[in-house]
């Protein structure tokens, strides 16, 4: 990597170790006092314009080395390079503190609050150190992701959350926790003057399920594939793919080519259904139900196709570490072609209908503008970033699955409004159809699942995919005996959601649902992770036997 010399010259001896993890992944271990400087050095590097904070992982490494660690994972995007850089610092077990990056780069805000919540690692100088992930009634000083916390524990505290005080002269207009325009619980507290939004506070993570803790405590590598897919009900397949890629990178597993192509086709089918879903939702929110119904009618064809290909409309469950579980039979290729043909003609009509509906365009145009500078500061990704002029797409910049062999365009718009995001998604839908066609043509033969021996413990790697909503990053640190030591899933919305208050300011409450929806938020994705029974406050986890019984009952019904 070409900039390492420069880095060494600048920080000298305080860089403790530089290690290559995979062909495009580097891990730089630095002294904790310069951690924030090194992170910002890369983020603001003049030659890497689209560098962004992809994820941040806090790990309880006390059983291994008696220390905590935090790693900022940055991705170098655009035309610069295909590189992921992890910047790691070890923190003493008795006083885990590090200097916060948030004052210098807004995008770090949530990550740092999350390690504070879950691991008790304190980001010093954080401008907003409120609770982020844990429920309002979680007691302080209990950190669920520490290794000495058992996954079935369920401590109870007092319910309290410090919402921000409304600015002077404003009233509170709560959107959520339940609202027709939100498909999942989330709470946007709008501070309004009349209809105008002056400011906004956000409280989310109501659907935090403890997926990471369960994965680290009681699942095997292959089982995690399925729980990773259940992170999201819309874009689950990209999550399981990202997870598999992380383990494959850590374990140096070669995935057969045919499996890569099958993954690509399924990923793009998923994008098709997801973008059609979004178009429908956007129409519904503006009262244009005809667009809604037609978009979802088209989407249904994709769902049916996926059911024929994988056995499920959604949550395909065909990913495994090392490949896929299900092959495409030859005659099913024709089915894919038929559906694509239908989509091509009907999607064109739908787009014409949308763009010729003046009232719809009027509602989208010039609303919820996120300028490029802010987009960069918040490290937003996916169609939201591309609608604001950020020219990056994981599929093109860090090719995974079969994307390296395929040809496609990455649409970028500069306007940064809701309409730009809509247009990005519409163009991506066309590109997806084109990608599937190419992948089908080039589909190689051979195995679909690689065999591998034991995965060596304590290796780290990340896997990234371009989900319909943006960059998904899964970090895995392998553990002994077919288990992971640390698993961290980061969904696209995690980077996009914190930017929403900046997009809402200055617009009206009429625009708010559309602006919120325009990032295509996926709250369960973002919040991942305990089945908590709110009423009793107890964590309820199904025993395996119980679960099996339920599953058998469910499949009998089918």
């Amino acid at each position: 990597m070409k900039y390492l010399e420069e880095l060494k010259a600048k920080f000298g001896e305080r860089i403790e170790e530089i290690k290559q993890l995979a062909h495009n992944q580097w891990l730089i271990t630095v002294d904790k006092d310069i951690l924030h400087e090194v992170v910002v050095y890369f983020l603001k590097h003049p030659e890497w314009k689209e560098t962004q904070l992809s994820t941040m992982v806090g790990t309880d490494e006390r059983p291994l080395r008696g220390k905590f660690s935090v790693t900022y994972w940055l991705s170098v995007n655009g035309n610069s390079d295909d590189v992921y850089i992890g910047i790691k610092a070890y923190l003493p077990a008795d006083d885990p503190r590090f200097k916060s990056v948030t004052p210098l780069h807004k995008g770090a805000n949530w990550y740092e609050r999350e390690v504070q919540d879950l691991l008790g690692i304190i980001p010093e100088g954080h401008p907003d150190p409120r609770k982020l992930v844990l429920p309002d009634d979680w007691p302080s000083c209990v950190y669920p992701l520490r290794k000495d916390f058992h996954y079935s524990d369920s401590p109870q505290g007092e319910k309290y959350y410090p919402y921000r005080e409304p600015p002077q002269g404003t009233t509170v207009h709560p959107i959520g926790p339940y609202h027709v325009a939100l498909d999942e619980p989330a709470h946007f507290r709008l501070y309004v003057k009349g209809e105008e939004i002056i400011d906004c506070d956000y409280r989310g993570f109501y659907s935090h399920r403890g997926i990471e803790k369960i994965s680290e405590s009681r699942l095997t590598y292959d089982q995690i594939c399925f729980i990773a897919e259940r992170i999201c009900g819309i874009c689950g397949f990209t999550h399981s793919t990202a997870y598999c890629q992380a383990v494959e990178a850590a374990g140096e597993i070669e995935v057969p080519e045919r499996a890569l192509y099958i993954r690509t086709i399924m990923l793009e089918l998923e994008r098709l259904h997801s973008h059609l879903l979004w178009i429908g939702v956007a129409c519904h929110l503006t009262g244009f139900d005809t667009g809604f119904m037609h978009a979802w009618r088209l989407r249904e064809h994709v769902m049916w196709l996926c059911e024929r290909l994988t056995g499920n409309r959604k949550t395909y469950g065909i990913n495994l570490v090392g490949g896929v579980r299900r092959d495409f039979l030859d005659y099913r290729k024709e089915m894919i072609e038929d559906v694509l043909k239908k989509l091509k003609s009907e999607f064109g009509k739908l787009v014409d209908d949308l763009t010729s509906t003046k009232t719809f365009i009027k509602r989208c145009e010039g609303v919820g503008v996120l300028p490029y500078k802010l987009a960069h500061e918040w490290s937003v990704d996916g169609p939201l970033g591309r609608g604001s002029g950020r020219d990056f797409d994981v599929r093109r910049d860090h090719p995974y699955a079969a994307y390296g062999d395929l040809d496609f365009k990455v649409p970028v718009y500069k306007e940064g409004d809701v309409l730009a995001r809509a247009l990005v998604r519409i163009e991506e839908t066309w590109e997806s159809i084109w990608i599937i066609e190419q992948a089908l043509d080039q589909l190689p033969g051979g195995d679909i699942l690689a065999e591998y021996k034991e995965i060596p413990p304590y290796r780290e790697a990340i896997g990234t995919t371009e989900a319909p909503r943006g960059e998904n990053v899964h970090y895995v640190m392998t553990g002994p005996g077919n288990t992971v030591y640390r698993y961290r899933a980061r969904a696209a919305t995690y980077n996009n959601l914190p930017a929403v208050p900046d997009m809402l300011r200055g617009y009206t409450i009429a625009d708010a649902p559309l602006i919120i929806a325009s990032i295509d938020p996926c709250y369960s994705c973002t919040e991942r992770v305990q089945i908590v029974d709110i009423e009793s406050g107890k964590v309820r986890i199904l025993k395996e036997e119980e679960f099996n019984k339920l599953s058998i009952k469910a499949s009998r019904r089918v």
Partner: protein
Amino acid sequence: MMEKIIFALITVMIIFLLPPLLDGISRKVKAKIQYRVGASIFQTYYDLQSLLNMEPILPTERLAFRIAPYIAFASALAATLVLPFGSFVPVAFTGDFFVFLYVLAMFSVAMMIAGFSVNNSYTNAGANREMMLILSIEPVLGVAIGVFALNAHSLSIGGIPLNITFTPSLILAYVLLAYAVYVEGGFIPFDIAEAETEILEGPLCEYSGRLLGMFKWAMLIKRLALLWLFVSFLVLPIMKNIVDITTFTGGLATLVAQLVVLFIIYGIIAIIEASNARLRIDQAIRQNTKVFFAGLVVLLIAALGW
């Protein structure tokens, strides 16, 4: 006398029972456009029936909250009573066109009372929007009817359609009237005050059960009143040349013609609704203001006698 009773009965049926059917048909038309099967055309009756049978949950002790739906219902009803049903006008007197405008405004006032009587930012926003919308569209409706009154030299809604003479300004007045009726009826893209996905039906947000049922029914009757006005202005001037409206059969034929045109117009409205998104309140007001100034020009043309 017998004839009058028959007309009165038919009129009562039209006012109370027809609006839910029209809504049901409109829902069916929209469903067809959206490739859905859609609910039965009688669904709105079922909805109203179940709502009216349910005890409402009251979020506030205020009397205003409880009586607002009845004020709305009474206003909508009053608006229909000055309209001509065939040859029959339930309550006719000179100047009833002002009454028509007043009671329509009363309906909106009831919505505002409903919205402001509870401490909820959603209902307040809805009430605000209703107020802005009504302030911007009521003048357009007034101007449109004014042009007709000027043309017919009559201030009675029953008398206007029978006395109008054909002039260029009249065609423009029809366009104005159609626009005003559409906006005031709260059809998409002007369902701004009750926008479901934005402010959860605005002023109706806190209503439930019987009170909600009354409000919904009243809104449907208000739409009927507005459309019936337009239909009468369209049908009566034509029918008076074909039949003698004052006779029983002539009156009946006119009534049938009015109903047929009403159904057609409701169908067209369903199509317009299905192919539009909702406007934002500021966009709607800007548009209404433009139309209002255009209306003033039409009024001027009419005053000059063209």
